[in-house]
């Protein structure tokens, strides 16, 4: 411990109790944000030159000039993309330097759609594609986007569009009207750090107006509510997107943290519209919602009876790169999220184990500790699937090595784990210890794998190992080398059941500006770190993903990453980083992951229990009860905290946590099916209420409630000593919701639910059929052959439907060989039908052992099952008066064969 104290003492010498905001820039301290924020709404100085208009089958292209600056020629391209999406790119013509466009966010080049010119005159041109229409007005420059002939968003409607072309440094004394002599334009200091800015100013800004929008969502990752707040008042800085390792980040804040997904969704009952700002540089986003601005005038209007139009303004400001954005015209939340998924991709179906419970701690001390912890879970009948090793497993923080004393026999440890179906996840960070004799460092120097300083020398920063350098994943030869490190013969002690945790990849540099890499560092291809910063975590995980595919070609990789960007979902799960053992952080875990889910990153979770400090026992239990309803479910704790594995507590606590864990495990078939549907349909796994209830004004600001698919509504208890919670159930009086524990029926509306420590506030939606596996097991791997139970929650019309997906739960056979089974369940007219959706089948022994009907019809005395192989057989039913549920005893039918059950 003495050693630790020392190291931590050095690292966090001036950041002990909470976030030190002084370490991070405000907009005012960032030259380009300061410059761009000075723009006043009004007539734009930008004009399109329609005489230069060129029209192709899929796009139009037009020149743009800044009327105040000579020779700053820009080119705007508007391209139609399949699925009611427009893409707009603005770049310099013959600029001094090339401008960066993110290379990895998009899931391949988007498929272009046909575009036709509807109308064209001296001052404007209107084009149409699918249900979309766009009108470009020349003087001043303005782009209006229509969906089904309704105006949904306007670019430069407020005249705040900006594009700083690359320029030569003006002579001393000469003024630059665009830069306005901002002292940070050509070099910038922050604290003791100096940014040489060899290319000078290059910022861009796009302003978007969303007429009629009531709310705007998006822009993960922030420790904030789901609905974005108006930033230009109450001294609220713009939402900042700049991946940073923020020690003890604060909540209700627009400060940047680990991830950046530059997508916004403007939402109204009629339309939900998205703008995806495709840029990897530091970005600030100002939000203005008329409802926040018009407080006074709306009071006046209330008296006078007139109503102000709702509207939202969003202004993206980025430090460099081309301007490239996509307008997704919805029209409904479902559609717009799918459009975003079609651009940036989805998380491929994960292995089942990764949806089960993960047990982590910084650190499990040694190999025996790992084995003992799992044995304790088993002895206490607590399920667990994955054990995790944080940085201390390495030999002195050298990744791809093991501590020779504490982990002298990793193979044996891993085999102990896998013998009961468990997996291991170990951490691999992108900083490499600069130590002579460390093969990775020596290879990196020899073959030139590291990120450089602006003068071309290798960049050195300080991280866990002390002096470190950072792998440059922009260099293909680095990635090629890096991915081979995961081969079992190179990473000795690992097996096909060891998976990877990529941390500190913002990247975190303890002694760097804002705890990250200097912006004037240079990556392969000559790109400045400034251009690519927010994408670094993504390229890191791509390298890891490729390495794991290479190592275990027919196993779906599991990677957890902290730094993330648009598109990260294709490679990794994400967690909300180093949270705290506080009730407020438990509360924040829901809006933060819901926001990520809207940003395409469904596989999200928060450290159960809170990373820093010791949770009290009530908080810990509540955190387990909440954590089971987020897709990624892992307990984690800081090295300075007391042990908190659930078996360490008194019997009542162990029982409560066991109940929570089992609730997670019984619902694994639901989670797994939802991830299949996420992959195939682009739907998020967890959803805020407005996703399914877009025209219900009551849900606009609800972010303490998550829908799991469209079947479960979870509203975790996130306050201490609570005896009741207020829950809003959508759907009005025809909305049926069944408490998942006692099956009591609630109708849509506001409810006060009494809670004790055992209470889970969660409901099955009437109208859904939830597949479960009710037999408790010690890990998900050993549930493979267990039968399913179906919970049919009937709606007001006595109907319900649902789906179930299954396969081998781990390989790519579902993709490569179509070995899977996907079932549709339907209940109507007192008849249950199970049918195959696709022809594909996975030869499984899984069968249906039980069907429970919630809100069943009266007078049922039995049931008749009919299938090809079983013929028609009678089944017993039993009605439980207390829970008002009907159980059909042992249908016994295989999931592979269609069957019906009729209630009689």
């Amino acid at each position, binding site marked *: 411990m003495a050693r630790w104290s020392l190291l931590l003492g050095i690292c966090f010498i001036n950041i002990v109790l909470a976030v030190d905001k002084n370490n991070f820039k405000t907009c005012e301290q960032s030259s380009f944000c300061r410059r761009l924020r000075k723009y006043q709404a009004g007539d734009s100085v930008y004009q399109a030159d329609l005489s230069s208009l060129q029209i192709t089958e899929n796009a139009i292209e037009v020149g743009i000039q800044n009327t105040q600056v000579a020779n700053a020629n820009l080119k705007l391209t508007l391209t139609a993309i399949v699925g009611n999406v427009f893409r707009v790119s603005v770049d310099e013509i013959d600029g001094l330097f090339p401008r960066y466009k993110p290379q990895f966010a998009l899931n391949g080049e988007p498929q272009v759609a046909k575009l036709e010119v509807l109308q064209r005159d001296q001052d404007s041109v209107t084009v149409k594609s699918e249900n979309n229409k766009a009108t470009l007005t020349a003087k001043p420059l303005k782009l209006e986007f229509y969906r089904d002939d309704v105006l949904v968003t306007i670019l430069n409607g407020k005249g705040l569009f900006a594009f700083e072309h690359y320029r030569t440094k003006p002579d001393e004394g000469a003024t630059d009207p665009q830069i306005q002599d901002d002292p940070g334009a050509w070099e910038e200091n922050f604290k003791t750090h100096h940014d040489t800015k060899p290319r000078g100013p290059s910022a861009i800004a796009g302003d978007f107006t969303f007429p009629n929008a009531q709310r705007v969502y998006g822009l993960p990752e922030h420790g904030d509510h789901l609905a974005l707040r108006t930033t230009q008042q109450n001294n609220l800085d713009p939402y900042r997107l700049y991946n940073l390792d923020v020690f003890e980040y604060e909540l209700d804040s627009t400060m940047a943290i680990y991830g950046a997904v530059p997508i916004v969704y403007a939402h109204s009952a009629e339309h939900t519209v998205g703008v995806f700002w495709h840029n990897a540089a530091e970005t600030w986003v100002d939000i203005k919602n008329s409802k926040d601005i018009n407080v006074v005038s709306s009071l006046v209007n209330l008296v006078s009876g007139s109503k102000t139009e709702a509207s939202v303004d969003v202004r993206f400001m980025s430090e460099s790169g081309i301007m490239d954005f996509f307008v997704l015209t919805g029209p409904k939340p479902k559609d717009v999220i799918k459009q975003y998924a079609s651009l940036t991709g989805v998380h491929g179906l994960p292995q089942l184990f990764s949806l089960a419970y993960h047990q982590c701690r910084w650190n499990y001390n040694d190999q025996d500790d790992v084995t003992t912890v799992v044995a304790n879970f088993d002895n206490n009948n607590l399920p667990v699937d994955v054990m995790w090793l944080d940085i201390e497993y390495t030999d002195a923080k050298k990744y791809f090595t093991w501590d020779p004393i504490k982990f002298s026999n990793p193979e044996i440890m891993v085999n102990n784990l896998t013998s009961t179906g468990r997996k291991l996840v170990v951490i691999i960070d992108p900083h490499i210890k600069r130590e002579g004799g460390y093969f990775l460092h020596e290879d990196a120097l020899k073959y030139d794998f590291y990120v450089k300083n602006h003068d071309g020398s290798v960049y050195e920063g300080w991280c866990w190992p002390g002096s470190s350098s950072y792998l440059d994943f922009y260099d293909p030869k680095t990635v090629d080398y890096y991915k081979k490190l995961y081969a079992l013969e190179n990473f000795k002690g690992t097996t096909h059941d060891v998976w990877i945790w990529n941390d500190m990849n913002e990247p975190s540099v303890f002694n760097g500006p804002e705890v990250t890499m200097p912006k004037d560092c240079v990556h392969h291809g000559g790109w400045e770190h400034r251009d690519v910063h927010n994408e670094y975590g993504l390229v890191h995980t791509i390298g890891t993903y490729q390495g794991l595919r290479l190592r275990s070609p027919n196993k779906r990789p599991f990677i957890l990453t902290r730094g993330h960007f648009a598109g990260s979902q294709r490679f990794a799960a994400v967690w909300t980083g180093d949270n705290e053992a506080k009730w407020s952080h438990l509360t924040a875990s829901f809006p933060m992951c819901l926001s990520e889910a809207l940003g395409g990153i469904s596989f999200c979770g928060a450290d159960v229990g809170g990373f820093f400090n010791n949770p009290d026992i009530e908080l810990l239990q509540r955190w387990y009860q909440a954590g089971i309803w987020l897709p990624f479910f892992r307990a984690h704790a800081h090295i300075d905290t007391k042990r908190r594995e659930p078996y360490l507590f008194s019997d009542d606590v162990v029982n409560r946590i066991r109940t929570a864990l089992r609730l997670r495990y019984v619902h694994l078939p639901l989670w797994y099916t939802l991830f299949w549907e996420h992959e195939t349909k682009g739907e998020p796994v967890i959803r805020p209420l407005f996703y399914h209830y877009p025209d219900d004004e009551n849900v606009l600001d609800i972010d303490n409630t998550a829908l799991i698919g469209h079947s479960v509504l979870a509203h975790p208890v996130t306050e201490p000593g609570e005896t009741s919670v207020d829950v809003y159930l959508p759907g009005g009086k025809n909305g049926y919701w069944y408490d998942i524990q006692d099956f009591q029926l609630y109708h849509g509306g506001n409810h006060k639910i009494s809670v004790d420590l055992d209470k889970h506030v969660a409901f099955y939606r009437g109208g859904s059929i939830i597949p479960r596996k009710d037999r408790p097991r010690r890990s998900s791997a*050993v549930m493979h052959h267990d039968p399913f139970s179906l919970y049919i929650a009937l709606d007001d019309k006595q109907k319900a439907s649902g789906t179930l997906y299954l396969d081998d739960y781990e390989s790519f056979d579902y993709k490569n060989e179509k070995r899977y089974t996907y079932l549709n369940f339907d209940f109507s007219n007192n008849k249950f039908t199970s049918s195959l959706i696709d022809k594909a089948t996975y030869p499984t022994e899984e069968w249906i*052992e039980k069907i429970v009907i919630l809100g069943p019809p009266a007078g049922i005395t039995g049931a008749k099952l009919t299938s090809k192989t079983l013929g028609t057989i009678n089944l017993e039913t039993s009605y439980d008066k207390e829970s008002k549920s009907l159980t059909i005893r042992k249908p016994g039918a295989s999931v592979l064969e269609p069957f019906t059950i009729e209630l009689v």
Partner: protein
Amino acid sequence: MKLNKFYANFKLKCLYIILVLIELSDSKAEVPRPRGVALSRAPLYDPDTNFTCFDGSKTIPYNQVNDDYCDCEDSSDEPGTSACAGGSFYCLNAGYKPSILKSDRVNDGICDCCDGSDEYSGRKTCVNNCQEMGKAAREEAFRLAELLKVGKQLRAELSQEGLKMKNEKQQKLGELQKHKEEAEKIKSEREELKKKAEEVEGKALEYYKELEEQYKKQRAEKEAEKLQQEAVENFKKLDSNQDGLVEIAELQSRQSFDRDRNGEVSEEEAKLFLNNQESVDLETFIEKSWPLMKPFVKIDSGMFKPPETTSEAESEDLQDQEEELKVEFGESEHEEGGEEDEDEDNEKEEQPEEHEEEEHYITYDEETQKLVDLASEARNHYSEAEKDVRSINDQIRDLEQSLKKDFGPDEEFASLEGQCFDYTDHEYVYKLCPFEKSLQIPKSSSSETNLGRWSKWDGPNNNPYEIMLYEHGQNCWNGPNRSTRVKLSCGAESKVTSVSEPNRCEYAFEFQTPAACREVSSAEGKDGDLHDEL
């Protein structure tokens, strides 16, 4: 003792006989019963009648027993499948001991019973290794029994030794208590003598007291003068533009005033010395600024060491010096305690240098000196007597404390006190000094970290002597005070066998000792509920 040994052997033999019997009965006449049911419960499952759940809640046709569907809330209808969440599965484990599993272990692809009976789905083939396990268990039981036999012998010896030590301590205590009375008597006699001598001396010294007061006053004046002189000198030095004022800029040019050591003297820092003004004149400088500045200026010129760096020894020296001065004037004995008396006597002749010249000018006339000498002698006699009493008290206290310690029901742990046992891992040497403390010493240095001082026995109710707890060790950075739990087990010799740190700053030692070799009262094992199955 012998009886115990016989009993242990008898138990082993019984177990063996029972196991053999089971094997015989198993192969010849198996009692028909559903899968997963213990022999003793077989009669509860009668294939000829309907089955009623044990809790009486439900009656089902017998063919629904073990049909892989859970009908009974108490799980009793599915003893051999995984259908019921709360069920249990009985494995016979012929050749070894039977076990009861949670029903979720049935057909989960993991062999839990040594006879493999929990995996019958055909998906997993288990090897029956009950014979090997039985053999190993019997060998282990034999080894433990042998160890216990040897260990008990040793324990008995330790116990005798402990009892002897206890007796000796008690005896010693008795003696000391007698001595104490005597010593106290001497002490009060000498105190009386001292008091008388001092009365006489006090009267004689009254005149000199006045002289002393005067002297002190003079000295104080001198010092103030010196300080002012210093201040004036420094004022001149600092006032580089000679305008009669010391200003911020003048201070900023001097690194001595960089209090936070950030490389520059900020305005705030400078102002702090300037009575929070832009500048000060000489008068204010002398009064306010210089006293604040002095340490910084002195540090820089190397004349002054900040108090933190003054070692304890040095400051004690200073104290001593002052006390010595007081002794000279015969004041010391009016204070109580005065623990350094002995040293004072020795060092009395070697006077500290600095103050000496000024101190020595008071001399007594011959008669007074004689009275002073007599009084000093009386004081010395008294302090010797007092020292004796104290020493006896200390010994008594130590003995009483030691006698209060719980060295086990038979004093068997007593001889461990005063010993230390080392354990070395790759980084540290750990020391366990039973009933005193535990320590961690890095191999690379000799600095000890205290991992806890003896607190109490902390084992479970049926064997409190299984765990030793050491608490209130050195504080952890950003954490609790270090503590150590020592788990004791029977071993032929006393040694620490492992050290770990399961929680930050909470250490766990394993310690083997013959003192722990005894049979623990029953109601311990979890197998207890299996006995009725046999």
